[in-house]
């Protein structure tokens, strides 16, 4: 097993690529590599891009990467697509929309299947982004399909999360259905060249007002009333801006980039950057401890003990809680 860490830190792409595979497969090498890489992490701006299939996420990521590259920043992209629930296989097609990025040594695109990772999607994505971060990529774009909880967890990894909508994908705002609107730092109405962008924007605004109530002043019988402002938070509040884009032409991209920069500035100004970083690391620590305790627990039990307890539980001789207490004593 050749050393992959030193060359990865020095910018060697094959080593980084192989390391990413080890990490995704949760192999011993991958786990050890993460320990060595960790001190080199914490510098990148992690940007999540999520939304329903076909809203134009990959096309948007392509454009965003071009924008960041024009500022001279190195960009890594982690593009996650769903696996087939039946075969575990996957067709990962996001690169099709990222042709413009080929040939640029300051870009690294990696595709990942959502169920391909043995340690779970959120854990694998967190680890993969750490490898990119350590390898010196300053902006990391993470594309996920906003569909399930684990995709939402991936989006939570990011400092800045873009939720992408497109007009004409049905009556509903897709993100509301999927419950991902609350994690949006910026709302993007892509395919703004298509009819229906106005009504999509109106619907999003309504949702935002419910989610981020602002002080309302209204008159009743000649008297002025005020609803209390949303929170007593002394820090300036971030209300997710809505930006329109046409990813196929690049229209609206400078404005979108500006919103991303403003969000990053807001996070730094309010100390929220540090807070998010800490929250993320806390989640990671918890996950690892939980997994380790679990493995330790099962390793400490005699074979068949679980089954015995389960039978007792099923006969209603023992409650699950009592059984758990006994097992924890035995393990």
């Amino acid at each position: 097993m050749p050393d992959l860490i030193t060359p990865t830190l020095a910018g060697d792409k094959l080593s980084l690529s192989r390391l990413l595979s080890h990490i995704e497969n949760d192999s011993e090498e991958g786990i050890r590599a993460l320990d060595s890489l960790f001190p080199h992490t914490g510098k990148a701006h992690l940007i999540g891009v999520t939304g329903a299939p076909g809203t134009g996420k990959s096309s948007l990521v392509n454009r965003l990467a071009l924008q960041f590259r024009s500022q001279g920043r190195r960009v890594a992209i982690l593009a996650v697509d769903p696996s087939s629930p039946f075969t575990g296989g996957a067709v990962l097609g996001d690169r099709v929309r990222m042709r413009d990025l080929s040939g640029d040594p300051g870009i690294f695109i990696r595709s990942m299947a959502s169920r391909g990772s043995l340690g779970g999607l959120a854990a694998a994505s967190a680890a993969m982004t750490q490898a990119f971060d350590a390898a010196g990529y300053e902006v990391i774009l993470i594309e996920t399909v906003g569909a399930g909880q684990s995709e939402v967890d991936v989006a939570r990894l990011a400092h800045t999360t873009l939720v992408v909508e497109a007009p004409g994908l049905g009556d509903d705002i897709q993100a509301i259905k999927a419950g991902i609107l609350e994690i949006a730092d910026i709302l993007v109405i892509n395919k703004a060249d298509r009819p229906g962008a106005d009504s999509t924007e109106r619907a999003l605004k309504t949702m935002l007002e419910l989610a981020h109530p602002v002080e309302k002043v209204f008159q009743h019988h000649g008297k002025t009333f005020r609803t209390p402002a949303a929170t007593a938070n002394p820090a300036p509040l971030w209300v997710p801006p809505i930006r329109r884009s046409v990813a196929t032409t690049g229209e609206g991209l400078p404005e979108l980039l500006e919103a991303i920069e403003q969000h990053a500035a807001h996070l730094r100004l309010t100390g929220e950057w540090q807070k998010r970083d800490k929250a993320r690391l806390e989640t990671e620590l918890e996950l690892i401890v939980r997994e380790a305790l679990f493995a330790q627990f099962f390793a400490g039990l005699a074979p068949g003990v679980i089954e015995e307890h389960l039978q007792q539980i099923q006969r209603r001789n023992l409650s699950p809680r009592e059984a758990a207490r006994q097992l924890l004593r035995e393990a």
Partner: protein
Amino acid sequence: MTNRKIRVLVAKPGLDGHDRGAKVVARALRDAGMEVIYTGLRQTPEMIAEAALQEDVDVIGLSILSGAHMALVPRVMELLKANGQETVKVFLGGIIPDEDIPTLRQVGVTGVYGPGASTDQIVTDIQASFAA
């Protein structure tokens, strides 16, 4: 590494028009449990090698109908080697005259398939190439 899925890059180099065949193969590989990175039409050998490098694939499937395989394939093999990826297995599908096959084998192509080949055969051959 027992749990790792076979990762395949499916690419369509050259200028010929459609990618139906490549998509059919991509789906068949997915249905066989592989992870397929699909890159679409009009890929240059440089783009293919770059994608193979970033994706750390085990296999590259090339679909070439234009007749340009004798120019494109050796170039892809050359770039893979330059990148340190000479162990990546390359499978080629398309309209390939019999007399070209020995040369293609010589530059390192693992399998060559004509338009009549079944996707099952391709899947079996890819799996077999990793069984050893």
